[in-house]
C-alpha cells in the first residue's frame, strides 16, 4: 500500500453531505419525478417509489460509499482502482472504467443542459419573455437550440456561448479542490436551491382560480399528482418506473459518490452520511419537486394539457410563459428562481462528474489539479460537440441513453455483485458499518446481499427487454402464442435494432440521415470507452514496472 501523495480531505461533515446531496439533486428532481408520478399511478406511485428507495436506493448508496472509502484507503480515488482493490481478478479494474466513462460522457451533455438554465436566468432577468405568447416562448426555445432549421446540423450560437461559460465555471470550482472548491460551491448552491424551491412551492400552492389569470386552484394539480390509483400497483411498468426513478435521482452507478467517499478517513462514518444525503435528495424531489411544476401548470393550462405535454422540455417551453401571468417584476423573480434553482442543481451535479475524471487523471498520469481540470474541460467540450451540433439528429439522445441510462444501470448491477459476492458480504457489511454513527438494522445485510441486486437485475432486464407500451402481460401473451417479443423502441434491444425506424440507411441521395448520426454517436461512445480502458491498461502497466506492489499502486 502506498500513501496518497497529498491527502485532500473534506473540511466539514455538512459540506460533504451537501456535496453528495448536491450530486444527487439534479434537473430530474424537478422535471422527471412529477412526470413519472402522474404517468404511473399518481399518489400510488409513492408506494413502489419508497419501497425502491429503502430496498435499492439506500443500500446502493451504502455500497458506493463503502467501495469509495475502501478504495481511498489504498490511495484509489476513481473506480478502476477501487474495484481492483475488492478482489484478485485483473478484470475488475476494467469494469471500473464505467466510473470514468459515464462521468465524462454524461458531463458533456449535462453541462449543455446546465448552460440552458443559465441562459434562461439571464433572459428572465432581462425581460426577454415579457409580453410573449405561449407559442413565442416555445419558439424561443427552438430558436435557442436552432431546432427545426431544416438542416441536419444545429448552430445554436447563443447556447454555445453559455455552454462555454458553464464549463469555465465548473472548471474554476474543480480547480480549487475538494474543500475550497466543491465543498464551498455545495454549501452555497444547495441552501440557495432549497430556498428558491420553497419560494416557488409556496407561490404555486397558494394560486387560486381567477388569481392572475389562473383557471383552476393549484390544489387541482396536487390532486392530479397525489390521487392514488391503487390498481396501478399490479402493473410491473409502474414498479419499474419507480425503481428507475429512484435509481436515477440518487446519481448512483456513476462513480461520483465513490470518488467523494474516497476522501474520507478509514474510520469516518459513511452509514449516516449516505442516509442523510439520500433523504435530502428525496426532500428536494418529492416535497419541492412535486409542488412546483404540476400545480402551476395545471392552474393555468388544465389537466388535459398536462396529460399530453408533461415532460422535460415543459420546464423551458412552458414555465417562462406561466410566470408572465404574475406581472413583469414577479415574472422576472420567478424565472430567475426557477432557472436559478435548476442551474444550482445542475452545477452541484456536474462538478461531481468532473472530480472522478480529474482524480483519475491526477493519479494515473500525475497531472496537477489545474492541468487535470483543463484536460477534463477539453475532453468534455470535445464530447459535447456532437450533442450540440447534432442535437436534433439524435446525438444528444444517444449520449443520454447509452451513457446516462444504460451504463449506469449496468455499472450499479456489476459493482453491487462485485462488492457483495466477490469482496464478500461479511467484509462488505463490516466495511459499511465501520465508524458508523447509526446502527444499521441487520435486516439490511440480507437486503444488500439479495434484494438490492434483484432490484437492479429487474431494472436492467426491464430496460433491456421493455415491450411495446411497457405492457408486459400482452408481451408474454404474444410470446406464448408464437408471435415473438415486441421490443419497445426505447428498450436496449429496441435501440440496437432501430425498432420504429422504417428506413435505416445512412445516406439517402447522398445526404446523411439521422440514422448515420445515431450510429456514429454510438461508435464514438464505444471508442471513448475503449480509449479509457486502454489508458487504464497502460497506467497499470506503468505502475507495475515502477512499484514493488503494483496491485496496490497509487492509481
Amino acid at each position, binding site marked *: 500500500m502506498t500513501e496518497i501523495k497529498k491527502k485532500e480531505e473534506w473540511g466539514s*461533515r455538512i459540506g460533504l453531505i451537501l456535496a453528495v446531496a448536491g450530486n444527487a439533486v439534479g434537473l430530474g428532481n424537478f422535471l422527471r419525478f412529477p412526470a413519472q408520478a402522474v404517468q404511473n399511478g399518481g399518489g400510488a406511485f409513492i408506494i413502489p417509489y419508497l419501497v425502491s428507495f429503502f430496498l435499492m436506493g439506500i443500500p446502493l448508496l451504502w455500497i458506493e460509499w463503502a467501495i469509495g472509502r475502501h478504495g481511498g484507503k489504498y490511495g484509489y480515488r476513481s473506480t478502476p482502482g477501487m474495484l481492483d482493490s475488492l478482489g484478485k481478478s485483473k478484470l475488475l479494474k476494467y469494469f471500473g472504467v464505467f466510473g470514468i466513462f459515464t462521468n465524462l460522457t454524461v458531463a458533456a451533455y449535462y453541462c449543455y443542459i446546465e448552460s440552458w438554465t443559465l441562459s434562461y436566468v439571464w433572459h428572465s432577468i432581462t425581460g426577454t419573455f415579457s409580453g410573449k405568447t405561449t407559442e413565442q416562448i416555445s419558439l424561443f426555445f427552438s430558436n435557442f437550440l436552432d431546432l427545426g432549421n431544416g438542416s441536419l446540423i444545429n448552430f445554436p450560437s447563443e447556447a454555445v456561448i453559455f455552454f462555454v461559460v458553464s464549463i469555465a465555471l465548473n472548471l474554476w470550482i474543480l480547480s480549487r479542490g475538494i474543500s475550497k472548491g466543491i465543498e464551498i460551491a455545495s454549501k452555497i448552491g444547495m441552501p440557495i436551491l432549497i430556498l428558491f424551491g420553497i419560494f416557488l412551492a409556496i407561490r404555486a400552492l397558494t394560486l387560486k382560480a381567477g388569481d392572475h389569470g389562473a383557471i383552476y386552484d393549484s390544489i387541482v394539480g396536487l390532486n392530479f399528482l397525489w390521487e392514488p390509483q391503487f390498481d396501478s400497483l399490479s402493473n410491473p411498468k409502474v414498479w419499474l418506473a419507480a425503481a428507475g426513478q429512484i435509481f436515477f435521482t440518487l446519481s448512483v452507478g456513476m462513480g461520483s459518490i465513490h470518488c467523494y467517499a474516497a476522501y474520507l478517513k478509514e474510520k469516518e462514518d459513511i452509514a449516516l452520511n449516505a442516509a442523510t444525503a439520500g*433523504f435530502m435528495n428525496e426532500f428536494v424531489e*418529492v416535497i419541492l419537486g412535486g409542488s412546483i411544476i404540476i400545480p402551476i401548470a395545471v392552474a393555468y393550462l388544465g389537466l388535459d394539457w398536462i396529460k399530453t405535454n408533461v415532460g422535460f422540455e415543459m420546464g423551458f417551453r412552458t414555465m417562462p410563459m406561466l410566470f408572465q401571468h404574475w406581472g413583469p417584476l414577479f415574472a422576472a423573480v420567478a424565472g430567475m428562481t426557477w432557472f436559478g434553482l435548476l442551474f444550482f442543481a445542475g452545477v452541484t451535479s456536474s462538478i461531481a462528474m468532473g472530480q472522478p475524471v480529474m482524480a483519475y487523471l491526477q493519479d494515473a498520469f500525475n497531472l496537477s489539479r489545474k492541468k487535470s481540470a483543463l484536460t477534463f474541460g477539453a475532453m468534455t467540450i470535445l464530447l459535447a460537440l456532437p450533442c450540440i451540433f447534432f442535437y436534433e439528429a439524435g446525438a444528444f439522445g444517444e449520449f443520454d441513453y447509452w451513457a446516462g441510462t444504460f451504463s449506469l444501470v449496468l455499472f450499479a448491477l456489476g459493482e453491487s455483485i462485485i462488492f457483495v459476492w466477490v469482496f464478500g458480504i461479511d467484509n462488505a457489511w463490516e466495511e459499511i458499518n465501520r465508524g458508523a454513527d447509526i446502527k444499521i438494522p441487520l435486516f439490511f445485510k440480507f437486503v444488500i446481499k439479495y434484494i438490492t441486486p434483484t432490484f437492479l437485475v429487474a431494472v436492467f432486464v426491464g430496460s433491456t427487454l421493455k415491450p411495446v407500451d411497457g405492457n408486459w402481460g400482452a408481451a408474454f401473451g404474444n410470446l406464448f402464442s408464437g408471435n415473438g417479443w415486441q421490443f419497445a423502441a426505447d428498450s436496449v434491444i429496441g435501440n440496437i435494432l432501430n425498432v420504429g425506424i422504417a428506413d435505416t440507411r445512412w445516406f439517402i441521395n447522398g445526404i446523411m440521415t439521422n440514422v448515420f448520426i445515431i450510429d456514429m454517436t454510438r461508435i464514438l461512445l464505444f471508442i471513448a470507452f475503449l480509449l479509457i480502458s486502454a489508458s487504464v491498461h497502460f497506467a497499470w502497466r506503468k505502475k507495475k514496472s515502477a512499484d514493488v506492489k503494483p496491485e496496490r499502486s497509487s492509481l
Partner: protein
Amino acid sequence: MKISALIMMLFAWGVIIFFTGKFLFKALRTKKEEE
C-alpha cells in the same frame, strides 16, 4: 383537496421529513472528529 390525495401526500411528506430531519439532526450533532 381530495382526502385520498391528501393522505398519500402527507404520508410521503411525513416519511421523508421525519427521516431527513432525524438523520440531519444526528449528523450535525456528531461532527467530524477534527471539527
